[in-house]
């Protein structure tokens, strides 16, 4: 006999009022494998559990069925109870006779019949349950942060402050990301550089942080607690171990190319630091514009460098490092509006600029030292139009979503303009004004008080009349066409996932949504986790947000990482896929269907039919217990049933089905 014990719970009157529990208990006694059945008022209570434990001893029960509330309620309670009894905690099944019987059916006769059916199914399944044991997975106590913007910086600092090692990888020559490009930040109008550069310095000075600028993640292998990451250090052509960052090389470099950091408003040399406060404050050579590297002539920097740091032979270098957790903070880029909006001149008018360009224009350390001038002729604009939702909330041309920060960003631009140009007129074209955030609505009110003119309508066309630009729109509040003569037009463009973020997501096995943003494990309850264990999200890579939200999310991700790294090892669920190697034909159908890359093709030696009686290495599927989440998709892909899901084996489910029609 199987020695199954069945315990029917009354749940006070919750179950007993709608189900004849005594009859259900009697019926259970005659089910195959059942040696003992009992009913009780509250099975989950202390005496209820004791009653089960006593029955296990008295009747030598080896498997338990509990007919009670949903397994989602008390499955763990009863598993813990079994641990005390010596019976493996996975040799238990719960028949859900409360939520799915007693509470939903009025007819006691039918409800009782259904309860008996569910008990019979649970008994059939429990007879096929196997004792399972969870594995302990060791955890590498080091975190990787991908992206050195404010999100990555904050996450790295928080994790490092908690005492864990962090490697911060940034693809640009300096950390800082988008935030250091900004002049001021809303709603306080404090200087962006003043609050972000100290954090950058903290990163470089922190004993627990290893900063790898000008580097990229090339490959990610492994799983939670045990990632092995290949990092590519791009060729810098400058030996940073010796370089002091004196800047002599950059001054003398004869090559000049438009500075991407300054949005093309100024030029930079081929050997350069991204901006004056860059961290690390040491230059790299951009191989695409260096005259020496392109033509072999020049070599000025090598001659000028007092320490001999320049090495034209430098090459990309790859190395691997182990991590226990990964934070993705790959950020965003602004939409390429010129490709989307032909009616705004598609880049033909130099005085139509995007918001980030304006930030460089208005920035005291920017190319104009903070003077707002027209890029075309260097004159001070007297009328400025700001257009919101360029590429956002525009599914036809750009993205359907709201980029969230632009309403405040536009208001901030207006305030910055008022602060710098006497008597200037500012028009802001909007669809809606969205200011949910602490102090945001007040900021917007103040912007209007300062004189910003808000026009409700999407600009349909920008054209040139002489020296000025005309913004034409329908003012949807007036119901009239308006034309605004503007000296300068600022487009508040949409945030888009940073170039390359999809490939990072791909390497990590993390999902991205239709717009390319990384997807959180649960939009409400697991907002900084991905569905890949040990991979977390910080900042805009998960979706548009402003700086306060970005920093909060980065700290939240850091908290999750710290929680993980504080453990030495973690328990993995034993209810995962398992391969019966002898049956596996190595067809790899399961490998393709696994959402977690948990299945790889390994080899099994043996003398095989068709192997000419030599020992051959046969391909077979291998499940990584750390990666497998137990979804069971592979089991259906496997035609032979060689891969099966522990706890939900094919045979167990078939027995449940069969038990319903005895």
């Amino acid at each position, binding site marked *: 006999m199987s020695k199954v014990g069945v315990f029917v719970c009354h749940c006070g009157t919750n179950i007993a009022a709608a189900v004849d529990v005594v009859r259900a208990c009697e019926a259970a006694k005659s089910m195959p494998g059942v040696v003992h059945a009992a009913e009780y008022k509250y099975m989950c209570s202390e005496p209820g559990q004791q009653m089960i434990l006593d029955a296990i001893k008295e009747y030598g029960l080896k498997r338990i069925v509990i007919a009670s509330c949903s397994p989602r309620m008390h499955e763990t309670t009863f598993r813990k109870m079994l641990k005390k009894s010596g019976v493996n905690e996975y040799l238990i099944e719960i028949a859900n006779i409360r939520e799915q019987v007693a509470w939903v059916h009025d007819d006691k006769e039918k409800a009782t019949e259904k309860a008996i059916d569910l008990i019979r199914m649970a008994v059939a399944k429990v007879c096929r349950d196997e004792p399972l044991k969870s594995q302990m997975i060791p955890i590498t106590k080091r975190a990787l942060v991908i992206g050195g913007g404010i999100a990555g910086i904050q996450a790295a600092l928080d994790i490092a402050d908690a005492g864990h090692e962090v490697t911060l990888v940034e693809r640009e020559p300096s950390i800082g990301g988008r935030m250091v490009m900004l002049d001021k930040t809303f709603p306080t109008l404090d200087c962006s550089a003043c609050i972000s550069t100290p954090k950058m310095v903290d990163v470089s000075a922190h004993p627990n942080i290893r900063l790898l600028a000008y580097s990229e993640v090339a490959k990610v292998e492994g799983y939670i607690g045990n990632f092995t990451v290949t990092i590519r250090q791009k060729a810098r052509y400058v030996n940073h171990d010796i370089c002091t960052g004196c800047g002599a090389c950059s001054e003398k470099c004869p090559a000049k190319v438009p500075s991407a950091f300054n949005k093309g408003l100024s030029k930079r040399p081929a050997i350069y630091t991204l901006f004056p406060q860059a961290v690390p404050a040491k230059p790299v050579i951009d191989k695409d514009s260096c005259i020496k590297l392109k033509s072999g002539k020049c070599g000025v920097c090598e001659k000028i460098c007092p320490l001999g740091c320049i090495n034209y032979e430098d090459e990309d270098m790859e190395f691997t490092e182990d991590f226990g957790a990964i934070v993705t903070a790959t950020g965003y880029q602004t939409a390429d509006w010129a490709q989307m909006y032909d009616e705004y001149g598609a880049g033909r008018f130099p005085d139509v600029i995007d918001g980030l360009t304006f930030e460089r224009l208005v920035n005291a350390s920017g190319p104009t030292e903070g003077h707002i001038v027209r890029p075309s002729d260097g004159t001070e604009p007297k009328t400025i139009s700001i257009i919101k939702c360029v590429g956002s909330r525009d599914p036809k041309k750009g993205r359907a979503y709201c980029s969230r920060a632009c309403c405040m960003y536009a208001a901030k631009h207006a305030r910055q303009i008022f602060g710098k140009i006497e008597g200037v007129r500012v028009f802001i074209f909007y669809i809606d004004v969205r200011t949910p955030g602490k102090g945001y609505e007040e900021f917007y009110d103040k912007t209007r008080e300062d004189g910003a003119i808000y026009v409700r309508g999407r600009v349909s066309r920008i054209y040139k009349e002489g020296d000025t630009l005309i913004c034409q729109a329908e003012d949807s509040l007036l119901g009239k066409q308006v034309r605004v003569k503007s000296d300068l037009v600022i487009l508040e463009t949409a945030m888009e996932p940073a170039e390359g973020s999809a490939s990072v997501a791909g390497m990590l096995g993390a999902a991205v949504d*239709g717009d390319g943003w990384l997807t959180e494990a649960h939009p409400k309850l697991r907002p900084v986790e991905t569905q890949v264990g040990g991979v977390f999200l910080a900042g805009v890579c998960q979706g548009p947000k402003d700086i306060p939200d970005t920093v909060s999310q980065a700290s939240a991700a850091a908290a999750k990482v710290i929680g993980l790294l504080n453990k030495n090892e973690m328990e993995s669920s034993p209810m995962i896929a398992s391969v019966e190697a*002898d*049956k*596996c*034909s*190595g*067809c*790899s*159908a399961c490998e*393709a*269907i696994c959402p977690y890359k948990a299945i790889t*093709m390994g080899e099994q030696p043996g003398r*095989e*039919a*068709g*192997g*000419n009686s*030599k020992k*051959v290495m046969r*391909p077979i599927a291998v499940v990584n217990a750390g990666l497998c989440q137990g979804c069971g998709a592979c089991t259906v*892909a496997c*035609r*032979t*049933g*060689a891969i099966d899901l522990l706890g939900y*084996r*094919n*045979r167990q489910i*078939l027995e449940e089905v069969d038990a319903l029609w005895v």
Partner: protein
Amino acid sequence: MNYTEKTKLIQTRAAALLEAGEVSYVLGWGATRFADKTRARFARSPEEAATLVYNEHCTQSLAKYLVDDRWPETRIAILARGCESRAINRMIRDNQIRRENLLILGLPCEGTDAERCRSCRAHDPVVYDELLWEPNSTGAAAAAELSRYYRADAVDALSAAEKKAYWDDVYARCIRCYACRNACPVCSCRECFVDMHRTGFQGKRHSATDNQTFGVTRAFHVGDRCIECGECERACPMGLPILAQTQKILKEIEALAGDYEQGLDAAQDNYLGAFDLDDKDDFM
């Protein structure tokens, strides 16, 4: 070129390969004691190469034999028409055989006396190392007398009650000998679900229901990888319309996802092993 000339070409090439020791054997067809039947022949020497034949009675598709010799010391030469070549591609995709172990002698085909050849749209081999003669331009799809899904179409035309009666009759006759499975080039499991007594997917009774469970399950297992060679029907001793089940699956996949043909190359995904975010769910 007639069959005698083609046979000669095959014999000559096979003999040369075996003489040079380039292949361990040549997998082709040989004569039987019935004039209108051939069978698979493994020619292992130049002398045996002279016994290979090729004619309109070569109804058997040879590819399935390759899984019986997965680790050959020397390459295997196989005569491959459209059906064999597609099977080879699919078997490579399923990790069952390796391309480097094969020397594929491509035979552009004009069809045999098997019924399934009358619906064949793939006379020319899609993968080969050498072609023994030039493709016949009239081969291919144009020559198909029967529509691609002729069996499935016939059943689809029936009413619900007629369908039930049709399959009741078919599965009352099925003896579950599993010859269809054994002959099928994409049935490559080491242990078939029907043999797994402990898992119990397949009831062991001889009942129409259990027979149908087998038939439908098999169709699900091979349907989206079916290369439409018709070996299942050729092997069936009861002459059952086995192709109808797989044709139905292919037909529905094509209706859902557009052009769908398996075995065209060795990297092709099968429908049920992939998904599209925009897949329909109007069956709900």
